[in-house]
């Protein structure tokens, strides 16, 4: 029994040991600042390889992930804008220097395992990708939170999941776990089944609108699909004109219609006249104030009415 226990502990220890080192780079023990300093020096010295990708692939061609670059747009050779048309691998990973002598000298690496700062990694992408889509990037929340381009985008593959309608939600929700859970609430936009995507409303590269929305304001974003609520209406409902999220939570709610609260409670948080709206509703299914659509049984034009006699939003 003791021998079995010792062997089990040894086996588990070996698994842990190898699993922690199997993908570690030879320069993993360098600090971020030391690594950046070394790579800066390499970059300025400009000791590029003699044969470009052929030099790199002498060692790296057996790696499926490395070779997958040729399945995507960054690996095409017949496009003058592609890295492969110029410095090839070193366009992004920096000059080879002495890396080919044993593989110990650091190269620029990307992704969550890279010790390079996000701004250093992003400087490479932005050398080519600096267009109006990224105009608001520098002051965007993603940049201020030091999210690197490679944290969302995958270049060494045939398809970038961040650019595919069927996988972009998974990309966003790998960090935005709260919103991922909210997709499963009683009512939410159909993100759960990829029928809508996060980027239908938001710009992950940042925008000059609130919450990095695609359109100028919150309401304009909602009106792009729910334009019947835009108006302007003859009789406006003030909180609607001010912001749709006064009453709704677009990421999902335990209530129908993505409402933060249901009628009559939601309505009674703002309305308390000397009349029926101030009456407490003891139970939901006993009368027209609690049953059916509650307040909306009569006040159905809750987003505003275009009826001359619709000041009470009834018509």
């Amino acid at each position, binding site marked *: 029994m003791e021998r079995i226990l010792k062997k089990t502990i040894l086996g588990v220890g070996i698994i842990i040991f190898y699993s922690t080192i199997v993908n570690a780079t030879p320069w993993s023990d360098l600090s971020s600042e030391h690594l950046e300093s070394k790579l800066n020096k390499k970059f300025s010295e400009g000791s590029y390889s003699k044969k470009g990708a052929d030099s790199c692939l002498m060692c790296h061609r057996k790696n499926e992930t490395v*070779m997958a670059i040729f399945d995507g747009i960054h690996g095409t050779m*017949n496009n003058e804008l592609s890295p492969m048309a110029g410095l090839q691998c070193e366009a992004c990973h920096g000059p080879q220097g002495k890396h080919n002598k044993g593989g110990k000298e650091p190269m620029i690496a990307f992704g969550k395992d890279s010790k390079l700062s996000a701004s250093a990694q992003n400087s*490479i992408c932005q050398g080519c990708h600096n267009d109006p889509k990224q105009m608001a990037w*520098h002051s965007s929340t993603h940049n201020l939170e030091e999210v690197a381009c490679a944290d969302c985008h995958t270049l060494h593959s045939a398809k970038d999941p961040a650019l595919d309608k069927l996988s972009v939600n998974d990309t966003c929700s790998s960090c935005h776990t709260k919103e991922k859970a909210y997709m499963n609430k009683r009512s939410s936009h159909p993100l759960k089944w990829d029928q809508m995507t996060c980027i239908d409303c938001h710009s992950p590269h940042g925008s000059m609108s609130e919450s990095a929305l695609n359109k100028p*304001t919150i309401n304009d974003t909602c009106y792009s699909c729910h334009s019947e609520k835009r108006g302007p209406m*003859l009789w406006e409902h003030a909180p609607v004109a001010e912001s749709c999220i006064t009453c709704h939570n677009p990421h999902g709610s335990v209530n129908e219609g993505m409402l933060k609260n249901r009628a009559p409670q939601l309505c009674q948080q703002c309305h308390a006249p000397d009349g029926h709206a101030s009456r407490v509703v003891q139970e939901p299914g006993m009368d027209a104030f609690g*049953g059916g659509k509650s307040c909306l049984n009569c006040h159905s034009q809750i987003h505003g009415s275009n009826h001359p006699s619709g000041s009470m939003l009834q018509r």
Partner: protein
Amino acid sequence: MKSFKRNKISLSLSLLAMSGHCLAANFDINQANLNNVDVNKYECKRCEKPDDYKGFVNVSSGYTDSDDIHAGNALGTSDKGAFGAVSSEFNYQGSTGYQASLTAHQLGMDNGFSRLSVGKSGLYTLDIDYSELKTNQAGDINIESYPSAINDQFDLALMRKKVGLSFDYGHDFYKVFTGYNIENKTGRQSSSLLAPTAINVGLPVDMVTQQWNAGMSLNGDNWLSEISYLGNSFHNNTDDLLEPNVGGVYAASPDSIAHHLSLSGQYNLGSTVVNGRFMTGRMIQDESLIEGFPLQNWEGEVNTLDGHLAVTSMVNNRLRVGGSAEYSKRNNESDIAAFNQYNLSTVTGKLRQNIPQDIERNTYKLNAAYRFANGYRLQAGYDLKEVERSSGDREQTNDDNMWVKLKLNVLDNLNIKLKAEHATRDGSKYEASELTSSEDNGLMRKYYLADRTRNGGEIQINHNPFEWLGIGLTTRYAKDEYDETLIGLTESEDYGYDLNMSVNFNSHVNGYGSVSQQWITSAQAGSESFSSPDWVDDIEDEFINIATGMSIGGLMQDKLTLGLDYQFSNSVSDTYVTTDALLKSQYGDYFSYNHSAKIYADYALSNQIALKMSYRYERYYDTDGAVIGVNEIPGLVTLGDINHNYNAHQVMLSFTYQLR
């Protein structure tokens, strides 16, 4: 994209890069030292030349067993019975840079889409899109107490069909773009009419929304600019509802059109970047008013003006500071007129007039981030939002928000993020004048205008104890207190957590698991005596979501992959009513839960042909205490029982042929 340029690097820039102390590392290809390289000698013999075309075609057929169209939201088809669908992907890459792609996903089911894209990389792209989106609320509703023109047997469901076209052309320093899409939304939507008593109906929906945009961008070495126009028009194909005895029962959503013109730009000064936008817009609605009223036409017009300026600067490689200012003005210039109402205003005693609302917002933000040690970063910020309303219960509100974040990379594979915020809202006097007064209890404070104090915090922990295991835990808490409110929302508390785990045993076996919970409790007070509070509602919302799944590949000589996904969620909302200290009642059940499960087997018959079998199960149950019988309450006609309680099954067989 900028074209790849060969730049000679200047000595001063190389010295600056080597010093590395003042600025963050910059590996921009345009700053590269190319003195010692000749890319013409690069032959790329070991590079893989991809095929000029590749793709696949997938044909699926299956059977759905479900008695409730609501299952269609999850299963992709709301009809019981057999179904078929086609998916495909086709990519062509020419030797001179021309490319084309065709993507189709589940065409034939309720939510299919397709895109055709052609162009020359770096020069132009033309995209043509088609998509369908169906949302199902309830099926087989049959109301007979209203003219059958409106209420016959129907499903509460909405189908959107959208076609779009976009084109962009540009090279190097300029680009022009344009796009157009049109969407038709049809179906039936739950609504209610007063004719003359309240009748819940399935209102017919037939709407068309069109969007179009056009613009041009120019860019230089360190600047970007864009001018663009965005338009959106709405057309309603359904008419107003008139009844002979009660006049205009229902005014349909009016046709409207909106325009936005914007000019935006960015200037990059190296370590400091400035971006800004100026935008003007107009929303117009001049639909004829419902028949039978003296005023036939009413012109609705809202003009908007928006400005945004943001600056962010890396003072050194440890400190970043930034700020932004935003201005937004909504000017409602619609006609004002007096209309006969069914009752008069109790405040003014006069015929009611419509009140066009103007809103002006100013938002200012400051933020700073300091890296005080390797892997340790402190951020702090202050946001101020000032809103002014021309006519509202409160003319001016100011929201202050102070926040601080701390990121700690405790170990290489363990990082912790902490966030705390404190926000307050105050503003001008509530109901300061007759124009801004309402007929509400003088103690009422609308929650989106009321004085409020918010305190919140969040802790996030991410840990990779092993290369193959990732664990993330986030927990958050926020409390809103409306201390000046006696009638209305008085308090709201929101807390919860998410726990996520991903496991990648090897390239063939991976799995995931997650648990999320959230609790929201709110309290509000009211008064039946039009004076001090005499009743309180406590609302307790609870939500749980559990998801897990696994896929095992590489079986049967790397031909077979098996997978399983399971998800469970439960949304609950309980309302407790207290009318005095002794009397407390609870609303009936309001909750919904679902179990979703999927198992699949993907088998490669050959290098080109694959077969996939999948089975999906959906169990859904919801209840709502407000859902009652059609004529259960005198004076109210409802749609009847539209709750759901079903088990739905779907089997699908897919055949995929790989073209290359």
